[in-house]
């Protein structure tokens, strides 16, 4: 009885801590992600997630035509590399950008010519990160946009 009580309490606290961790991460991107210059507006599609080394998240967003976008990633200092890939949903998840090929840069700017769904794939790779670290930590994705001036 005592052992089952301890196990129950342990599981309860673990569940609580994971939930609290996810909640603590909710606005992480607003506090830690690189921001673009003042000509961009914050996009509410920005988000933060809680990940471990080796884990991946997909953030499905919509981008409008003739609009410039800025996407940046940020994470807890224990994570040295965050892999950001931008996939086109309609083209069979074609990879349009992969920061692993660019020394894991933490931001990218792009102009988009057709309204579409994109997938921002966020991975905490084993490459460059401590594989023995099993803790979930915050990873943020900031999206900002502006009207493409060349379109007018």
């Amino acid at each position, binding site marked *: 009885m005592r052992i089952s009580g301890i196990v129950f309490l342990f599981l309860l606290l673990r569940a609580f801590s994971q939930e609290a961790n996810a909640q603590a991460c909710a606005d992480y991107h607003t506090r830690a992600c690189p921001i673009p210059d003042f000509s961009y507006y914050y996009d509410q599609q920005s*988000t933060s997630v809680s990940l471990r080394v080796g884990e991946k998240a997909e953030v499905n967003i919509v981008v409008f035509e003739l609009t410039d976008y800025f996407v940046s990633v940020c994470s807890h200092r224990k994570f040295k590399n965050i892999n950001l890939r931008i996939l086109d949903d309609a083209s069979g998840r074609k990879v349009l950008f992969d920061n692993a090929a660019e020394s894991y840069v933490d931001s990218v700017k792009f102009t988009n010519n057709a309204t579409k769904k994109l997938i921002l794939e966020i991975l905490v790779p084993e490459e460059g990160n401590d594989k023995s670290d099993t803790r979930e930590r915050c990873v943020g994705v900031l999206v900002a946009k502006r009207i493409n001036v060349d379109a007018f």
Partner: protein
Amino acid sequence: MRTRILIIVNIIFALASCNQGGERRRNQQQEYKEVDLSKQGDASKIFYRFPAPKDIIDYIKTDQLIYLKDFLNPISNADKYHDSRVQNFNLGVYAADFAYITVFKTLSEASEYFGTIEKLAYHAGLSSIFDEQMRRRVEANEANIDSLGAIARNSYNDMVNYLTLTGNERQLAIISAGGYVEVLYLAINQTDDLEADYSLLRKIYDQRYGLENLCNFMSDFTDDQWMSNLYHDLQAILDVFNLVDAKIESESKATKGKGGELNFSGGNIQLSITPENYAKLKRVVVETRGKYTSPS
């Protein structure tokens, strides 16, 4: 004694897990090495996000679009919503109306509609976002369309962040549904001329992407009948959108410019919008909007 120690250890462990302090931007300077990322992270956490009403209206707005005051939800309705979920839905509706007003520079209505948002936000527990101070900003900027636009955008973003941070994503789903339905309603009543207004129609049909993401976001909260009904009403709109024959004209590709910026081109989709489909879309949007905005 042993049990107590175990409990204390567990509590310390749990609290330590909560601690996300000391965070800072990650180190950018890494040596590049080839790594097969496809073998990692097979299990994904999937999140769905969608543009805000102000962004959609900014996008849809073309020279063809005109200001139709009669299609806004009358502010007199706000006092007649008594169910908290209906109040939340209409908070999204009025937020979309406010964004629409600011985009069309009809400044005289801006303050009235913001007052209505403030009232519903109070009932929704969001008075810390839409507060007296912000109302004073709206009143002080009644002649400044850029400031009003920024207030509409920022206040909505603040609300989304607040609801996410406080774990009220169910409420966010309802408010967002109200915003989407209202934007579609305002846009779809602009035209019946499919040929003359193809550019506008295409932009309206582009909203199927955001609506699809919203439906996926909402699918986590359909455990009660009211939410399930709302989900199915949105899904019905999406189903009509998806009846249109869509053909990808060219494959998406990314090219890099001189300044290092990327250009995502291609991926254009040619839609064959028929009068029947548009009429059906209009009917389902009007019915859905009427169902949730008609005072009880």
